[in-house]
C-alpha cells in the first residue's frame, strides 16, 4: 500500500503502537482495528504493516491464530450459541440445530442479506441459565426449541420492519 493510500485509510487508535515503546503492542492494535471496523480487513493489515514495519504475512499469522479476530464482517444481529460444558450437557446442540434451521446459516456463516451471523462461543458465564444464546448483547436462557423459534421469528420480523 502506498503512503498516500494508507493516509486515506480511516485511522484507528494507532497510538497503541507507541504505548510503552515496547514491541508486543500488535495485539492491542489489532483489537483496536476490530473495535473500529467490526473485523480486520486486508486494508487494515496493510495499514498496520505500514506503520509498524511488521511484515503483513506475520500480522496475518497472528490474526488467524487468535479466535477473537475476524477477517469477515459480521451480520447485523450476531447470534452466539454458548457451547460451554454446562450448555453442552443441557442441550446446546439441538439449540444450534434449531438456529441453523430457522435462519438457514451454519456456524461461522452470515446470512446472504447480511442480517444474521451465527457463532459458537465458549462459556459466557451464565451456566445456571443453560442452554443460553446471546443475540448481540441480549441474553436468552433456559431455552427450548419452540421458545427459541419464537425469539428468532421476532428478530426476523424486526429485520423486515426495519426495511
Amino acid at each position, binding site marked *: 500500500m502506498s503512503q498516500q493510500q494508507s493516509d486515506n485509510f480511516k485511522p484507528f487508535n494507532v497510538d497503541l503502537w507507541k504505548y510503552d515503546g515496547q*514491541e508486543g503492542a500488535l495485539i492491542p492494535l489489532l483489537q483496536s482495528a476490530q473495535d473500529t471496523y467490526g473485523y480486520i480487513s486486508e486494508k487494515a493489515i496493510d495499514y498496520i504493516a505500514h506503520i509498524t514495519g511488521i511484515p503483513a504475512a506475520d500480522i496475518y499469522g497472528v490474526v488467524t*491464530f*487468535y479466535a477473537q479476530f475476524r477477517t469477515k464482517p459480521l451480520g447485523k444481529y450476531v447470534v452466539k450459541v454458548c457451547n*460451554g460444558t*454446562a450448555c453442552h*450437557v443441557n442441550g446446546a446442540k439441538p439449540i444450534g440445530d434449531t438456529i441453523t434451521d430457522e435462519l438457514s446459516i451454519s456456524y461461522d456463516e452470515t446470512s446472504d442479506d447480511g442480517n444474521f451471523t451465527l457463532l459458537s462461543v465458549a462459556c459466557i458465564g451464565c*451456566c445456571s441459565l443453560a442452554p443460553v444464546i446471546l443475540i448481540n448483547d441480549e441474553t436468552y436462557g433456559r431455552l427450548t*426449541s419452540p421458545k427459541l423459534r419464537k425469539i428468532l421469528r421476532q428478530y426476523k420480523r424486526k429485520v423486515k420492519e426495519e426495511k
Partner: protein
Amino acid sequence: MKTVKVGLGTCGISAGGEKVYKAFQEELKEHPNAFVLKETGCIGMCYSEVLIEIENGADSSVFYGEVTPERVGEIVEKTILSDDTIEDWLAVKKDNTKNFLENQTRIVLRNCGIIDPGSIDEYIEKGGYEGAKKALTTMTPDDVIQDVIKSGLKGRGGGGFPTGVKWNFTKGAKGDQKYIICNADEGDPGAFMDRSVLEGDPNAVLEGMIIAGYAIGADASYIYCRAEYPKAIARLRQAIAQAKKKNFLGDNIFGTDFSFNIKIKEGAGAFVCGEETALIASIEGKRGMPKFRPPFPAISGLWGKPTNINNVETFANVPWIILKGGDAYAAYGTDDSKGTKVFAMAGKVKRTGLVEVPMGCSINEIIFDVCDGIVDDKKFKAVQMGGPSGGCIPADQCDVKIDYKEINKTGAIMGSGGMVVMDETTCMVDVAKFFLSFTQDESCGKCTFCRIGTKRMLEILERITIGEGTMEDLDNLEELSGQIKNASLCGLGQTAPNPVLTTMKYFKDEYIAHIQDKKCPAHVCSAILEYTINDACTGCTICAKACPTDAILGDKKELHIIEQDKCIKCGKCFTVCRFDAVVKD
C-alpha cells in the same frame, strides 16, 4: 437505613441484573433516601440470579433470588418500607438445612458478593491492603517467601506447583528487570472462578501481586486477561486507578523504596495461552505457541527476563496468608494440600455457581451438602474435573477427598476448579468427544501428535457416536492417547487424551453399547437413536414438512408416524416439534 445490594457479576448481568438495578433506581426516585443502593460481585449463588441482598444493619440481611424488575416494587413496599419478608422469593429459605453458604470456608471469595468491587474503600474496610502493608513494612522478601512456603499454597491454575518455591526460583534468578504475570486467561469450558474473583474482588488480586512483586524483586507486572471478560477487565482498570491514587501502586509504596506497577494485557481468545510460555509469547505480540522448557520463565521469561506467573486464585489467597500467617492457612486441608479451593459448579446440579471449600472435603459433600444434589433428583453419574485436561470421576468414587494427590489417583486432575456434574442423561462418549473437539480446535499445531493425533482420535469418537465404531477403535484410542501424551511439548497436548482415557476406564460399557448394540444409553447421540411420534402429536404437519427424506406420514390434524427405513436420524423433526411429540430412544 437499609442497603440493597444487587449482584452484578457477569452471571447476574446475563440474568437481567442491570434491569433490576435500574428498577431500584426508579424506586429511589419515588422514595428518596428510603435505602442505599449498591452493586456487588457474585456471591456464588448463580443458580438464583438475579440475586439481591437487603441489609438491615450489620447482622440482619435477607437474600432474594430470581428477582425480576416486576418484583422490585413489591420488594421495596414490603421489605424495605415495612419489615416484611416475602418468604416465597427468599434465595436462602429458612427451612433449608443444607445451607449453601454455611457449608463453605471462604478465603479467596471472602469479599465476593459482599463488598462493592468498584470501591477500594470498602476493600480497605475489610482489612484490604493490610497484608501488603505488613509485608512491605515489617517483613523481608525472604520472610514473605518463607511464610508462603509454610502456608503450603500450591498453584491454583491447575499445575499445583508450590507457590513459595516458585517465587524463590524467580527471586534467585539473575536479572536487572523481573516481571510478575497474573494469568487470568481462564479458558476451561465450565470454569468461571477467576472471572468471579476479578469481578467481585479485584483488589485482592492486585494486593497479592504487590506482595509477590516485593518478595521476588519485580517492579513491573502484567495481568493477562481474556478479552471475553469485559466486565473483569473494566473492574481491574478501575481498581488499578484507585490503587494508584492511594499509592498502593506506583513509587515508594507505604513510604518504602519499593515501587510496583500493573498493566493489563487483553488476551485474544486462544486456550493454549493459559500455558506459561505461550502466554508470554502472546504478551510479546506473537502467535501464542509454547516453547520448550527449560529455560523456565523463572530464569528466562517475558522479553528474556526472569518472570513469575501465578493464577488469579493463587494471588487472591496471598494477602490473607500474609495477614493471618502461613500456619493459619495450613491449618485447613490435608497433609498434601493446604487451604481452600474454589470450584465452579455447573451441569446437572441443583445449585450451580461458585463454592469454596477446605481441601480434604469430599466431592460428594460438595455436590450433595453444599449444592443440594442433582437436578430433578435424577441419578448422579459422574463429575468432570479439570476441564479438557482433566477427567471424569464416576459417582461411586466421589467420596474421594479434594486433594491434589487423591484426585490424580482417579485419573482426573484438580485443575483450575471447573466441576461439571453429570447425570444419567449425559452420554460419556459424547462428553469425551466434546472435550476432545475443544482441545483439537485449540491445539496450536506445533507438535505433530497433538495436531494430528487429536484429530484422528476425534474421528474415531465421531465414528463411535454414529454407530460405526469397531472394538479395534478402542485399542487405537488408547494407543494414540499414550503417544500424544508422550510427544507433546505443553500441557495442552500432554493432557488432551485424559477425558477419553478416564471415560474409557470407568464407562467402557457405554463405549461398547455404542459399538456393538448401536445404542446410546443416555439418548444423546442422535444418529443411533430411533425417532417415534407419540400421542401428543396434533397433526400440525410441521415435522413432515421439515423431514428431508419425506419419512413422516400423516394427514393434517391426524397422528403422524415415522417410517424407520426412510429415516436418516437427522433429528430435525425433534427440533421442529412444538408439542414434544417426537420421542427418541
